[in-house]
């Protein structure tokens, strides 16, 4: 028995940053919005006893329950994909606020180069540099930085971001709403070293606010207390900008927004007689097991890239990408990230156990096309940073090269190095390759009998080369900081789904200006279905050298504008 609910103007699938932004904007514009969230409600009161590394950081208390749903993975097409049985490489969000609850808050705008990477690369270096013949599928995003700038500004103001101007970033229409965070001893050492090497270090733009701030929606975000339990934790002070302290209450204050928790969406509904629209979504109440249909004038998929992809695919909307023929667009351009870093060993002890999720300094001299790639065998690069996020003892066990991973020597070194090592690393872009994509698994299903998403992904030579280069640059910085000894990262071989790397997955539902090579237009409106929007890092045509969420937030504001306009005139957006 399926129960059909009353129609709403807009339904969002999931209520994290993207769902929350769409909900707040649409509800403020007077539209009735329903947010279907598979997890439960939560907020600042739930984090009063959150300083428990084991429960939250190691056992992933706030994140997706893998017994219900995961993905399958293989490196290459000739392997058999197997389920990611426990979380590792990335940490999927769940419950109200999604991953925005337990993110760090490092809030960077992607570079102008990112959005026009194909044109700008070709213009500066010629077409061969794009290496199309080696399978790389680098493409422009169908939007420019300048077009997206107002939305970046809007996201930063909603989140109250604390920061200072970046001489190597894109132009800004306004300053950050709050000043940068406090500069610590290790940050100052990094700053001095970077300056003396001729780079341009700045304080990391942070969603852990340097001072209390009332945002344009009238929501107040408190001042960060540097509690050092930030990423993987919720903030007990309401000082980390998250959907629960910003866009969700803003949406609720309008009286036009309702969240329905414990509602797992399994399908986007279509009308057999009209293939230009969708009609709503079907979901399962995860507690009662009952099935419902939520009809809506506009459907917005805001469930993170894996489930955004999955819902399109199981609902047979759009054409699946085939790596053999390269036909179809759904699932293509999946990208991730590589990190090129080095650890410095010092005699001095640092207060590594203090910190905040986005407390750091960084420079962009080796990011994007800010440096000449003529003689380099790769494109792009990454933001080079030091962070002081609060080192915790279970996860922080730094040892020297060749030290065993257990026993007396391990114990001694991991203890001594806990406060005596500093790490500098570049967060490098990865570029799309025809062999890296999302598909649907034919064998494994989730708790609702829906097939799992299947990921086929491996690092490419581009990734290894950019990583190798930035490892050396990071090592120079660490040395300049006065490290007695420097340990360089080793260059990655095959992508490994086990160790945590980053929750910066991108692609699969990419945006663009051509339906032949993208899934949505630059309002994130589906090419085939006018009233269907798909928003998140899945829209990225490649992954840049930064954390994704400022760009995701900007895209969500752009999308919200599209949703509101569509609700008015029911037309395609251009």
């Amino acid at each position, binding site marked *: 028995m399926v129960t059909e609910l009353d129609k709403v103007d807009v339904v969002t699938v999931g209520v994290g940053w993207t769902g929350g932004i769409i909900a707040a904007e649409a509800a403020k514009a007077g539209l009735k919005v329903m947010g279907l969230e598979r997890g439960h409600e939560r907020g600042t009161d739930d984090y009063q006893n959150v300083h*428990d590394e*084991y429960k939250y950081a190691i056992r992933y208390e706030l994140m997706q329950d*893998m017994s219900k749903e995961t993905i399958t993975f293989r490196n290459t097409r000739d392997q058999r994909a197997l389920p*990611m049985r426990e979380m590792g490489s990335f940490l999927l969000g769940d419950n109200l606020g999604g991953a925005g609850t337990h993110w760090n808050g490092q809030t960077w705008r992607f570079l102008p180069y990112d959005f026009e990477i194909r044109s700008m690369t070709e213009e500066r270096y010629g077409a061969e540099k794009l290496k199309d013949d080696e399978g790389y599928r680098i493409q422009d995003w169908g939007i420019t930085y300048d077009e997206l700038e107002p939305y970046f500004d809007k996201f930063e103001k909603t989140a109250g971001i604390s920061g200072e101007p970046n001489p190597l970033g894109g132009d800004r229409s306004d300053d950050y709403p709050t000043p940068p965070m406090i500069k610590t001893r290790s940050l100052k050492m990094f700053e001095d070293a970077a300056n003396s090497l001729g780079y341009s270090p700045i304080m990391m733009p942070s969603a852990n606010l340097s001072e209390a701030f009332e945002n344009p929606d009238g929501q107040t975000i408190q001042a960060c207390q540097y509690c050092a339990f930030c990423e993987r934790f919720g903030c007990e002070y309401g000082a980390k900008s998250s959907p629960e302290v910003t866009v969700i209450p803003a949406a609720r204050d309008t009286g036009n927004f309702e969240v329905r928790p414990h509602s797992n969406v399994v399908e986007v509904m279509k009308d057999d007689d009209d293939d230009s629209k969708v009609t709503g979504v079907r979901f399962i109440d995860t507690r009662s097991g009952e099935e419902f249909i939520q009809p809506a004038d506009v459907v917005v998929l805001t469930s993170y890239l894996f489930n955004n992809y999955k819902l399109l695919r199981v609902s047979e909307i759009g054409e699946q990408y085939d790596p053999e023929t390269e036909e179809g667009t759904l699932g293509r351009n999946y990208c991730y990230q590589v990190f090129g870093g080095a650890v410095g060993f010092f005699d001095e002890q640092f*207060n590594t*156990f203090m910190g905040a999720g986005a407390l750091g300094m960084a420079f962009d001299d080796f990011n994007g096309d800010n440096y000449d790639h003529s003689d380099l065998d790769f494109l792009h690069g990454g933001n080079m940073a030091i962070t002081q996020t609060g080192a915790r003892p279970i996860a922080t066990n730094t040892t020297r090269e060749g030290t065993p*991973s*257990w026993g007396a020597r391990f*114990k001694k070194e991991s203890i001594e190095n806990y406060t005596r090592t500093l790490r500098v690393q570049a967060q490098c872009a990865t570029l799309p390759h025809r062999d890296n994509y999302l598909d649907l698994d034919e064998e494994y299903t989730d708790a609702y009998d829906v097939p799992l998403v299947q990921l086929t992904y491996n690092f490419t030579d581009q990734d290894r080369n950019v990583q190798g280069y930035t490892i050396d640059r990071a090592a120079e910085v660490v040395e300049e900081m006065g490290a007695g000894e420097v340990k360089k990262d080793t260059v990655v071989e095959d992508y490994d789904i086990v160790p945590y790397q980053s929750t910066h997955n991108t692609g699969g539902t990419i945006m663009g200006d051509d339906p032949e090579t993208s899934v949505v237009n630059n309002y994130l409106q589906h090419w085939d279905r006018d009233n269907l929007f798909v928003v998140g890092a899945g829209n990225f045509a490649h992954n840049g050298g930064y954390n994704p969420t400022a760009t995701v937030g900007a895209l969500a504001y752009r999308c919200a504008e599209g949703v509101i306009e569509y609700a008015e005139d029911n037309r395609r957006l251009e």
Partner: protein
Amino acid sequence: MADKDQKEKKFSRRDFLKTTGAATGGIIGGSLLGGSIGMNFGSDMSTEEEESQQTGESGGEESGGTENPGRIFFHNDADFETISQAMERIFPEDDHGPGAIKLGVPYFLDMQLAGAYGNNSKEYMQGPFREGEATQGYQSRLTRAELFTIGIEALNSESQNDYDNGFADLEDDQKDEILTKFEGGDADFGIPRAAGKPEDFFGLLRSATLQGAYADPMYRGNRGMEGWKMKGFPGHQHAYIQQIDTDSFQEIEPQSLYGGK
């Protein structure tokens, strides 16, 4: 940290077992290693803690402050002794301070194996189960609790095979040889590799040992917050906003989440 004199005065745990004859018999149990004996293996505990140990059994007390909070998962004394000894080799007592046993890490594991961790409640456990590439991660049909049970059996059979002795009765360097075989995937695990691998067991053994040494003491390891003290981690502090801009290193007395030790 224990200074040299204190170190010499104190019994090593092994000496103690030898003296009581326990090392060769099968009677080693939590009770013998526990507070009821009143034996203080440590040198750097506060008076308060020593007292609570000497007064012996303490059903009502906070678990972290007692030597033997009891066991939920390991009903067999010899199994518990085997895994305790293995954990001690992963994180041995040394100049920095206590090892896994004195930190209560085996009791941490015991409670974890009885709960969501041991039962893989939050992991995807639907079949079919197949052996995968290393990059595909854990693919065994076994829960962590089952893997530990098999691992303990295998530690002992491997030790019997190589040294004619149970794992707990080996010399330290022999124990390390055995553990190294598990780490490298070279030990005989008694079941097909597709079902469970010795290196997976070793990986869990290692990570659980570190988790027990450094988790909040409410999880029964990190007794007296000694794990944190060794490392210089202040545990749960509400905020560092007052100290974050100081250039000098701050030594801060650790504090646990709910005040337990």
